[in-house]
């Protein structure tokens, strides 16, 4: 836009102000009317008529006047804005020139800010991508997850059976669409051997609920959701690329899934990864409303517009109660009215269901990183104020030349904002790299990790934060610089007074930095200590040295007798591999999450009273399972090869379960069963309790049964090896392939890795918070060092004189260290106070460590205080070496 012609004009008008703008319009219009009137008169029109005619020809002068004034006002505003921008830009260029003249200062300040801003920006990228951005589905705010809950039965979170699916699908009017899904693992027979496919079984409306259609092909029809007709599959973009070369001919192709010829009817778009990032195939559930058990599915629904999740929850809860009244024996609800229990559905926004557990750690980390930014900001403020003395003369000169203090203030602020922007540029670069490394590192698995990107919002927030921090760290020194100009000392002789107030400001900044660092340090200390406790916890089994191999048995082995024979052969072969110390099979190893969870009954005892203790894990295992995992056998015996279909059904229970009803070996010989199955198992052994799924939770009751009696085609092989597992596992693979070539062998991982993965979010918090605390301590240490150096330099003359009149050099060291110690004590004291308040907020991230853990609250602040005092040592030494003559000459 070209405003150049207006410049001259606005300069001329500016002193006369807005009223003249109106007067100009009046004058201009009056001139026109007068000219017209004159011309008419000259043509012989009588004066009165001439005036009226001129007015008539003109139209409505007041309307014209208003219109012109409005336009002129807008124009004046635009010109002022452009003028302002122009001067800001020139200030900015001046600031960059100034910064270039002091490269050391600029580099240090830019790097400090880049660390602060970069960390903030990187962390905000995570928060933004995971917590703030809507899920990548159309109208994602209307998506909800539905599960059931029956706390009286120990079922705080309870899946949905196929019978349940149909009743919500057909009964709930709040949903525009309702579907359900559950995870599955399929074996695909491909040309180069069998392969395990992470898959999901879904009901027909799944894709309608998600609002995402296959990129290629079509979604499932309702017809295909019937049992026996569900021999179709939709594959992921990834599988399509790796196995079908991205060819269009994939549609209609038949592949072998779990021995079942299955037709590919669709390919999902590349970014669709629900419910898990690794899903490679979606297959119809084969919905069978008569299946009343198997509460293993999750409901997912799209709310009708304007319906709240709470409303849908009330509606579906009513449906659930009707079901409970109809089928009282099914869930042991007895005759009691369901509305008198806490039985209900839980309808959660999908976004919350996916990211809920990550929200707290991420928010805490975001808060931590904001503290880092504040510390960095305070650091740069002290750096700036150390420059203030040097700038004083320049400011004085500019004031003397007529710059108003407001103008000088703006110049100084522009300078600090320019500095912050430099920091932001470098920091954003750092952040982008850090985020990229983090996402690829596979250090932790967070929900939506694949969606993490730096977007416009991140950049906007970074920019805003930088400008804000620039103003923040610039304002104090700048105000101070402008204010002390009152005495206007162009001669630098009397600097002491302004030094004193600079010192007060710097001391305050150091105290602030130290106290913020203490808060961070204590928070990090508590989290680190928790993590330490958690990783050194006695899990009740020893995962180290154990390798887990997922074994998906072919469908023909889907009966207990066949399983039994297979288990015998495979264990014999695997145990014969050199380097294998022991091996066992199970439905699930600890933390793999494939055990059953069910209620249970004990023979001869009444149905247990309501309470959270009515749930038990149930896992079928082979002989040698407890030995391989190093779970101590307390009483009785392990399973043996004789515990097969021909023998008495037997069980081993864990100590947690046994102790609830019996003492010592009294559990042996008693009979127990799970509610989902009517086989009574005789207890033949009691083992120590092992933790499962959540290392932080005390072990639940656990019933182990014999895999040779229970059967199962999804097994985990646990192999304890001596020495390097890799070479041994190669032998194990060969042994397995020899026994059964159709088993895919791509699910091999160390059991310790499986356990580690359950600590992911905690590890994220631990690593990042620890890193942030370290950064904070370094920044605070550098900050106090800088400030004390400045103090010593400023008091060079005083120290010199003191030495000259006989002061001990050591006394000066003590003086400086004493001052440092006072600052440290003040900062640390305030920090501990702040931490007492702040750590209450991270209670849920802690494990077995109190939020006011005395050891952490004493040792870390002391450590920081020691670092602070140590940072003063060099400046103190310098004070002791002050040369009085040199100090005098300096003036």
């Amino acid at each position, binding site marked *: 836009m070209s405003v150049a012609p207006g410049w001259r*004009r606005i300069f001329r008008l500016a002193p006369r102000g807005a009223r003249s703008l109106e007067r100009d319009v009046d004058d201009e219009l009056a*001139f026109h009317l007068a000219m017209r009137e004159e011309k008419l008169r000259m043509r012989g029109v009588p004066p009165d008529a001439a005036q009226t005619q001129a007015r008539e020809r003109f139209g409505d002068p007041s309307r*014209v006047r208003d219109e012109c004034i409005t*336009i002129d006002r807008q*124009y004046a505003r635009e010109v002022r804005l452009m003028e302002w921008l122009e001067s800001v830009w020139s200030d900015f260029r001046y600031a960059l020139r100034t910064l270039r003249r002091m490269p050391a200062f600029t580099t240090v300040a830019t790097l400090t800010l880049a660390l602060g801003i970069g960390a903030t920006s990187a962390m905000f990228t995570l928060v933004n991508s995971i917590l703030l951005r809507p899920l990548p589905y159309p109208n994602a705010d209307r998506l909800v997850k539905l599960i059931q809950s029956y706390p009286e039965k120990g079922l705080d979170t309870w899946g949905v059976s196929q019978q349940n699916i149909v009743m919500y699908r057909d009964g709930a009017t709040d949903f525009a669409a309702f579907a359900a899904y559950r995870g599955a693992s399929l074996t695909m027979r491909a040309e180069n051997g069998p392969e395990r496919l992470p898959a999901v079984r879904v009901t027909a409306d799944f894709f309608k609920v998600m609002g995402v259609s296959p990129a290629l092909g079509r979604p499932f029809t309702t017809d295909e959701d019937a049992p026996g007709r569900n021999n179709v599959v939709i594959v992921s973009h990834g599988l399509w690329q790796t196995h079908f070369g991205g060819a269009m001919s994939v549609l209609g192709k038949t592949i072998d899934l779990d021995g079942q010829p299955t037709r590919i009817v669709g390919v999902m778009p590349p970014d669709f990864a629900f419910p898990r990032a690794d899903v490679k195939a979606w297959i119809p559930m084969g919905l069978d409303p008569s299946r009343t058990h198997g509460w293993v599915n999750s409901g997912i629904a799209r709310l009708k517009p304007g319906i709240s999740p709470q409303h849908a929850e009330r509606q579906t809860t009513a449906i659930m109660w009707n079901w409970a009244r109809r089928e009282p024996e099914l869930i042991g609800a007895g005759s009691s009215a369901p509305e008198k229990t806490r039985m209900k559905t839980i309808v959660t926004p999908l976004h919350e269901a996916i990211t809920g557990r990550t929200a707290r750690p991420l928010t805490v980390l975001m808060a931590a990183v904001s503290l880092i930014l504040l510390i960095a900001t305070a650091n740069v403020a002290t750096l700036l104020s150390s420059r203030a003395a040097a700038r004083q003369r320049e400011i004085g000169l500019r004031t003397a030349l007529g710059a108003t203090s407001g103008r000088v203030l703006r110049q100084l602020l522009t300078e600090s904002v320019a500095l912050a922007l430099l920091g932001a540029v470098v920091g954003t670069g750092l952040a982008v790299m850090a985020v990229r490394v983090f996402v690829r590192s596979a250090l932790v698995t967070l929900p939506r990790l694949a969606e993490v990107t730096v977007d416009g919002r991140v950049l906007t927030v970074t920019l805003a934060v930088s400008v804000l921090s620039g103003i923040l760290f610039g304002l104090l020194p700048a105000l101070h610089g402008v204010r002390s100009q009152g005495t206007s000392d162009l001669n630098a002789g009397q600097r002491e007074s302004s030094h004193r107030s600079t010192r007060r400001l710097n001391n305050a900044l150091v105290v602030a930095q130290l106290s913020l660092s203490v808060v961070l340090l204590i928070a990090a200390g508590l989290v680190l200590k928790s993590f330490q406790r958690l990783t050194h916890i006695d899990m009740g089994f020893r995962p180290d040295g154990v390798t887990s191999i997922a074994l998906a048995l072919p469908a023909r082995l889907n009966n207990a007798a066949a399983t039994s024979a297979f288990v015998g052969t495979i264990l014999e072969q695997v145990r014969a591999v050199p380097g294998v110390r022991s091996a066992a099979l199970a439905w699930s190893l600890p933390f793999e999450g494939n055990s059953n969870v069910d209620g249970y009954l004990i023979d001869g005892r009444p149905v247990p009273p309501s309470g959270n203790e009515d749930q038990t894990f149930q896992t079928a295992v082979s002989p040698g399972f407890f030995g391989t995992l190093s779970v101590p056998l307390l009483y009785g015996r392990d399973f043996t090869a004789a515990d097969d279909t021909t023998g008495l059904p037997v069980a081993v229970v864990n100590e947690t379960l046994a102790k609830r009803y019996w003492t010592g070996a009294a559990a042996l010989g008693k009979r127990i069963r799970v509610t989902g199955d009517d086989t009574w198992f005789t207890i033949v052994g009691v083992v120590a309790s092992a933790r499962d799924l959540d290392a932080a939770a005390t072990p639940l009751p656990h019933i182990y049964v014999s895999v040779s009696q229970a059967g199962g085609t999804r097994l985990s092989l646990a192999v304890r090896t001596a020495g390097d597992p890799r070479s041994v596992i190669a032998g194990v693979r060969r042994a397995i392939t020899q026994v059964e070539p159709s088993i895919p062998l791509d699910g091999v991982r160390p059991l310790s890795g499986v356990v580690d993965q359950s600590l992911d979010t905690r590890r994220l918090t631990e690593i990042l918070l620890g890193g942030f605390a370290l950064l904070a301590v370094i920044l605070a240490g550098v900050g106090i060092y800088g400030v004390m150096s400045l103090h010593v330099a400023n008091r060079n003359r005083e120290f010199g004189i003191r030495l000259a009149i006989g002061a001990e050099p050591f006394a000066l060291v003590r003086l400086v260290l004493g001052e440092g110690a006072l600052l440290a004590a003040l900062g640390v004291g305030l920090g501990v106070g702040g931490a007492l308040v702040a750590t209450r907020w991270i209670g849920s991230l802690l494990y077995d460590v109190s939020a006011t853990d005395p050891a952490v609250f004493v040792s870390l602040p002391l450590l920081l205080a020691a670092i602070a005092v140590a940072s003063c040592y060099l400046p103190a030494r310098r004070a002791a070496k002050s040369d009085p003559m040199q100090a005098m000459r300096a003036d």
Partner: protein
Amino acid sequence: MADAESDLLRSSLDLLVLKALTWGPMHGYGISEWVEGATDAVLLLEEGTLYPALHRLERRGWLTAEWGVSDNNRRAKFYKLSAAGRARYRAEAPVWHRHAEAIAVALRRTSAQTA
């Protein structure tokens, strides 16, 4: 005045103002005299409408304004074409010609058939 007519008049008036000023600086009254003379008073029904147009053109940077003294020794606001205004005139005039001719041809047609 109907919107369509107002838009049409406004853009044609703008063009005429630019044209008037190609002969040199003029005050508002002078411009109105020229426009009335040049168009047989068809376009400028009310002389007042000229002024918002002038101020708008000034705001867009096509005109510059300066106070000066008129022939009969009165204080008057003189408008001058800026370089941008001159360029604008050169760009707009041929467009106007093309449109006017096209519209005139279209309005003279006597059948619904397309050629």
